[in-house]
């Protein structure tokens, strides 16, 4: 991270505004994200007031913050967007697809500007074209011709005088520019040109419609450029003697007579008190300040005609609850500490077992409380890190829209289960693989509209994203109704690449070939063209997270990629089982049942394979002792407990010596501390300080299939 583009100049009244930047950046980011979602969802033909208001509010909110914290370029662009959105929500303009496009593009530019202010070292963002495009839309088709009026000296050569750094600049403030009286009021319009041509000058707005009764035109300017310079620039269009620049920092006022309003001395323009409003200081009414006066003078008409629309805005539902922002590090530290606490609690519980509970009744009760509280605490802390899948899904509508546009395809995105929660760390890591899958679906799965029509499918293809909880995992599916995979071609392709692919493969195994490293079908058969690009990376990333990927497909009808991930990486409920002197942990979510083996239950098939019959269902038996070569010193004992576990759609029975109990375990990554071990997903520290391996049930199930 480089330095923020801001510098110490943001000191203001002894308060360093830069301390609020981070919050502003995050908040602006969220607002832009939300705005993008809404813009993508909007139906141009029938945009509701509520939607338009909500979109307006996003731009409005970003503008307010940007102006306050001195990010002039951001304020300028959002200001224009807001102007357009304001007209939309007031139904002065009807939304068009072109508007949505420009607003989306502006959103991108804003994100880039914000990233720059956060110090990504990028070049200044060029927004002149966008600003023009928005202005053109604001003026509407009708307004275009009369626009020819701009001033004689519309000359842009003044531009170079403006400082070229659009970084947020110190000294950003609001000014009121009074122009006139002019022979030709149109002359003042040229001032808009000025602000359009000079990047970074700031924003200009006509105050009160720009047409005051006194023939003077008032503009509100937000700028960081010094007054003298600003006036010099304006004189290109309007004679100096007709210009008056005032401190709009006035920017406040009281309504005379309103509750609490001060005595009239405060004639500072830019704020005001309302007369006879409750709390307004008694005498106030007399010397009404310049601003409130016209307010009172131009009564109802303006207000009456327009207030109806803005009223609606309070209806827009965005139930933001109070939230607290903390850094992820703090949360992680908390989780680590809780993890340690869980281990300590487990140790105490273990040691406490040896204590005579009759003699130490209170101690036992205390230990029981400790266990319960630890568990609650742990759950509460873990939930802090859980965020909804919508955080990932939200990025896709935009991506698909752009991609489909580029490819000349029609694609619709459907998402389900956005509220499903997942650990933040996982969300971050799953985003890239999912992006790849969605992109692949659109790029290689969905056919061109004509091709689809020829096949009798609807021209618009559908990509569906589904997230759901299943046991201790989250399952994310990426489905498309495109061309699907061709088994024979996949197998042929694999052999060509020297990948072992027997004809006896199941469909699932054949489809899984596209995950094989080197299985790039880039210039291959049309049906699967490009499907394999980077899929091995996708698979590797998901496996690294403790997840699995499966593919289902029907040629001509589409395909489904199913990603299964653990909910969280840090802590899980485990069942501990003993084999010989060793203790192993099974994820409780995968345990189905357990029973004692009786004679005759286990049958040997095909020489080495053993199966056990459980309620008319045969399942493979896996002897943990053999899998891990557990040394056995007590030959009297044999494994005679079966634990049925389930994973990846298959069940196996694990043969163990004994069931030791259930407990929460803190998962320690084995790969990070040692290396990858087959059939093991991690390790944990037991109450007595020993290390126990956590079994990878998925791997064991796969082992049984071979």
């Amino acid at each position, binding site marked *: 991270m480089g330095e923020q583009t801001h510098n110490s100049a943001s000191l203001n009244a002894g308060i360093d505004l830069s301390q609020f930047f981070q919050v502003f950046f995050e908040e602006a980011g969220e607002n832009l994200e939300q705005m993008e979602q809404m813009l993508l969802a909007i139906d141009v033909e029938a945009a509701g007031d509520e939607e338009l208001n909500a979109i307006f509010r996003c731009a*409005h909110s970003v503008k307010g913050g940007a102006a306050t914290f001195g990010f002039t370029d951001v304020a300028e662009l959002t200001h224009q967007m807001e102007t357009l959105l304001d007209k939309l929500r007031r139904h002065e303009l009807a939304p068009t697809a072109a508007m949505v496009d420009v607003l989306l593009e502006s959103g991108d530019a804003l994100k880039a500007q914000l990233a720059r202010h956060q110090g990504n070292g990028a070049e200044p963002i060029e927004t002149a074209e966008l600003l023009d495009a928005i202005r053109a839309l604001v003026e509407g088709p009708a307004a275009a011709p009369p626009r020819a009026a701009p001033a004689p000296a519309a000359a842009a050569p003044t531009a170079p005088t403006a400082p070229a750094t659009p970084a947020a600049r110190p000294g950003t403030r609001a000014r009121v520019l009074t122009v006139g009286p002019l022979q030709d009021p149109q002359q003042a319009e040229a001032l808009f040109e000025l602000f359009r041509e000079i990047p970074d000058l700031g924003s200009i707005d006509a105050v009160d419609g720009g047409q005051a009764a006194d023939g003077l035109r008032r503009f509100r300017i937000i700028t960081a450029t010094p007054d003298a310079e600003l006036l010099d620039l304006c004189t290109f269009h309007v004679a100096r003697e007709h210009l008056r620049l005032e401190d709009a920092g006035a920017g*406040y*006022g*009281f309504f005379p007579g309103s509750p609490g309003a001060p005595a009239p001395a405060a004639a500072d323009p830019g*704020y005001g008190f*309302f007369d006879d409003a409750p709390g307004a200081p008694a005498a106030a009414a007399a010397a009404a300040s310049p601003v409130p006066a016209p307010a009172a003078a131009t009564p109802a008409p303006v*207000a009456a005609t327009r*207030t109806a629309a803005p009223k609606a805005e309070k209806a827009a539902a965005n139930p933001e609850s109070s939230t607290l922002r903390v850094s992820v590090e703090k949360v992680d530290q908390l989780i680590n500490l809780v993890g340690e606490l869980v281990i300590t609690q487990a140790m105490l519980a273990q040691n406490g077992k040896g204590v005579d509970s009759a003699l130490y009744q209170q101690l036992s009760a205390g230990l029981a409380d400790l266990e319960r509280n630890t568990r609650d605490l742990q759950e509460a802390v873990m939930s802090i890190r859980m965020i909804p899948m919508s955080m990932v899904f939200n990025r896709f509508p935009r991506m698909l829209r752009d991609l489909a546009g580029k490819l000349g395809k029609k694609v619709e995105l459907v998402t389900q289960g956005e509220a499903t929660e997942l650990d933040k760390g996982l969300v971050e890591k799953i985003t890239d693989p999912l992006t790849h899958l969605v992109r692949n679906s659109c790029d290689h799965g969905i056919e061109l509209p004509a091709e689809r029509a020829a096949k009798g499918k609807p021209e618009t293809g559908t990509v569906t994203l589904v997230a759901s909880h299943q046991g201790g995992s989250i399952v994310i599916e990426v489905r498309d109704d495109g061309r699907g995979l061709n088994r024979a071609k996949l197998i042929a392709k694999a052999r060509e690449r020297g990948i072992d692919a027997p004809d006896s493969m199941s469909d699932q195994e054949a489809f899984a070939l596209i995950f094989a490293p080197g299985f790039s079908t880039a210039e291959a058969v049309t049906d699967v063209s490009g499907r394999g690009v980077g899929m091995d990376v996708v698979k590797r990333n998901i496996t690294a997270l403790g997840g699995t990927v499966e593919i289902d497909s029907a040629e001509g009808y589409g395909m489904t990629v199913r990603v299964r991930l653990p909910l969280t990486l840090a802590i899980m409920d485990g069942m501990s089982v003993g084999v010989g002197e060793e203790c192993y942990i099974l994820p409780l979510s995968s345990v189905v049942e357990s029973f004692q083996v009786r004679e005759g239950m286990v049958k040997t098939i095909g020489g080495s394979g053993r199966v056990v019959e459980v309620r008319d269902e045969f399942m493979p038996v896996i002897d943990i002792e053999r899998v891990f070569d557990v040394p056995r010193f007590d030959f009297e004992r044999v494994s005679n407990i079966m634990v049925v576990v389930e994973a990846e759609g298959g069940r196996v029975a694990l043969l163990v010596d004994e069931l030791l109990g259930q407990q929460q375990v803190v998962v320690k990554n084995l790969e990070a501390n040692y290396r990858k071990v087959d059939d093991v997903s991690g390790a944990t520290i037991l109450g007595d300080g020993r290390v126990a391996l956590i079994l990878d049930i998925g791997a064991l199930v796969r082992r049984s299939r071979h």
Partner: protein
Amino acid sequence: MHSILAVDDSASMRQMVSFTLKNAGFNVVEAVDGQDAYEKANSRDFNLVLTDQNMPRMDGISLTRRLRENPKFKSTPILILTTESSDQMKQAGRAAGATGWLVKPFDPTKLIEVIGKVIR
């Protein structure tokens, strides 16, 4: 010590306002929108309400109107923070019973200055 209810749906603005006010020696309670503010205002007393105009759920003008309905807030100064200082806004503010307005963006010095005029 004077208590101020600061209402804004933008977290950064809220923090900035709140920090500034606390720095100036005021007691500050924050609310995230008009509805939240209205509920908080009913549970305790404030010497001043400082509210943003454009917010979800309930805007500043509606909040002002509702607070004025409550005898407790009959004479409490209420200032509206707004990005537009149009006559229209002022009409609405006056009609709702607001004490005054302050145009955004403002700097901390200005905020304290304006507040100093209504809290004595």
